[in-house]
């Protein structure tokens, strides 16, 4: 009697001690204040851009379209918290609307890149042989061309709108991801659980989806976060060169790039969009770093 109760208490102990990969990762993340802060800032900025504009418009009584010649280059004040731009439009509300576009482009393009990178990387790594050679040749060719040149050519071919930008940045952003995933798949391919699945007669597609994919998803997550930050930087660079999303649609990139013509009249037009871009990109990178610490078992102490 006492014996069996001992066994059951022991099994309970094991139960509570049991740790899953994702449980471990969550625990690690919760003990990483910098990553949590960055994540919180990103959530806040996303929420503010997507849900904030109507609220702010009501409270402050401003409209994103409202231009007024009398109110040009106003410094930050009670009425216009972040001042007004060269057409007398309220900068805060434009930054919020611009955040919608910039963040939407960042999220959508990096998810597109992740999807392509995962599919191509898994196929290349798992198939091997000529398929792998062809894919790797294609990737190394494209990575040899300075990325900005490709972006410039692509955006000059299609007149840039937010949707086009998502596709251009998404279709050019998967190379590094595919390379990383392929390397990981090559390593996984020789492991027992894959060999066992093969021996049981599972189809290659089933093995890729059920056995390989779950094991590379953590790398994809790290990579997609950092990629989202790079997309925001790329969007602002393209805007600066006049090949980003065109006016009057505001994005953080084109607001910042507009400001260089007016910095003598209003320094606030230079400072706020630039700070927002930097903070957002910084947070994406910090979250990426934090995820790497949490999801890569090798880096765990």
């Amino acid at each position, binding site marked *: 009697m006492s014996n069996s109760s001992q066994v059951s208490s022991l099994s309970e102990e094991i139960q509570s001690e049991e740790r899953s990969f994702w449980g471990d990762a969550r625990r690690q993340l919760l003990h990483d204040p910098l990553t949590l802060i960055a994540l919180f800032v990103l959530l806040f900025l996303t929420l503010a851009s997507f849900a904030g504009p109507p609220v702010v418009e009501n409270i402050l009584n401003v409209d994103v379209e409202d231009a007024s010649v009398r109110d040009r280059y106003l410094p930050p004040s009670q009425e216009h918290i972040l001042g007004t731009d060269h057409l007398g439009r309220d900068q805060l509300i434009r930054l919020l609307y611009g955040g919608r576009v910039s963040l939407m482009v960042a999220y959508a393009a990096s998810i597109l890149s992740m999807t392509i990178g995962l599919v191509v990387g898994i196929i290349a790594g798992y198939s091997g042989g000529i398929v792998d050679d062809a894919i790797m040749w294609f990737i190394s*060719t494209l990575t040899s*061309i*300075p990325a900005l040149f490709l972006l410039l050519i692509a955006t000059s071919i299609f007149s840039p709108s937010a949707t086009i930008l998502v596709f251009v940045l998404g279709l050019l952003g998967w190379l590094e991801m595919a390379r990383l995933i392929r390397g990981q798949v090559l390593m996984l391919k020789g492991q027992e659980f894959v060999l066992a699945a093969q021996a049981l007669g599972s189809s290659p597609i089933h093995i890729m989806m059920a056995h390989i994919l779950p094991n590379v998803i953590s790398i994809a997550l790290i990579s997609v976060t950092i990629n989202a930050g790079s997309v925001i930087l790329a969007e602002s*660079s393209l805007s600066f060169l006049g090949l980003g999303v065109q006016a009057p649609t505001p994005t953080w990139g084109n607001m910042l790039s507009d400001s260089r013509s007016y910095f003598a009249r209003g320094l606030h037009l230079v400072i706020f969009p630039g700070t927002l871009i930097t903070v957002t990109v910084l947070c994406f*990178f910090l979250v990426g770093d934090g995820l790497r610490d949490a999801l890569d078992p090798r880096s765990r102490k």
Partner: protein
Amino acid sequence: MTAYLFRRLLQAIPTILGITVISFVLILLAPGDPLAQFVFNPAASPEATERMRRQMGLDQPIHMQYLVWMIGNDWQMIDVDGDGTGDVQGTRHGLLRGDLGNSFQHNQPVLKLIMERIPATLRLTVPALLIGYAAGILLGTIAAANQGNTIDQIIRVFSVTGIALPNFWLGLILIIIFSVQLHWLPIGGMRDLSRTDAGLDVWDMIRHMILPVTVLAFGIIASVTRYMRASVLEVIEQEYIRTARSKGLTERRIFNRHILRNALIPIATLFGPALAGLISGSVIIEQVFSWPGMGRLVITAIYQRDSPLIMGSVLIGAALYIIGLLISDVLYALLDPRIRF
């Protein structure tokens, strides 16, 4: 070593061929006619435009245009007036014989235009690369040596911020502070335009270089610092460092001979990507500081749909990247005696 280099160069050939195909196709996809400026010119008759089109080979199918671009057409007669017989001797030598074609807008050989601009771009990128690497290695090592304390935290925050800053914004802020407010440095350009003599004024040159080189170097410092810190931390954990310590070597000697040398190896591989990043970065920085380098040439070529010039620049940019990778490999071999070819 020579054999290895030769083999690597041979391996680069399929990549370069791929680059020529991809850039060629991309540019042909572009809507808009390079002859549009002639079409809309009232002085140009439709016949003259047609002649022009045939002479430039734009009436040919895509694969023929690609072939002409690659191997030339100087042994052929071109049928300019469309009557079925050749009229003009072809003039193109093709990429394989070092001819990248003529720029539409400048009407000059692409290679010559690019070669004229490359020194200006190198004058920004080479100092940026040297300063970036030197400062990055130093800061990364200092951060690793102080792992976990305040100095380390400051350097880490600085290096992540350096990567997250849009570099044209940094350039703009530096211009506002140092040129507009303080009047210490010129706003842009490569030399003082009020000087009429052609003589070389080193101080003037350096004054114009300070801001753009700082901005370009900033990004490199940031990324080299990150890699160097991680690399030093990894080396410190190794058994051979413990061995060195137990042999009673001085800390200075352990650091110079064992830690630094080994930690530098992964940094060498960063060189190729860093060079590629610099080529892209200089496109933007040249635009910010009105620097007459290759980047500005590319931008105007793209605005003007000057396809020979765009393709030429893409090709030269890619060639520089591949050279960067080769230099990485050579550095790797120099730093790591285990690697022999």
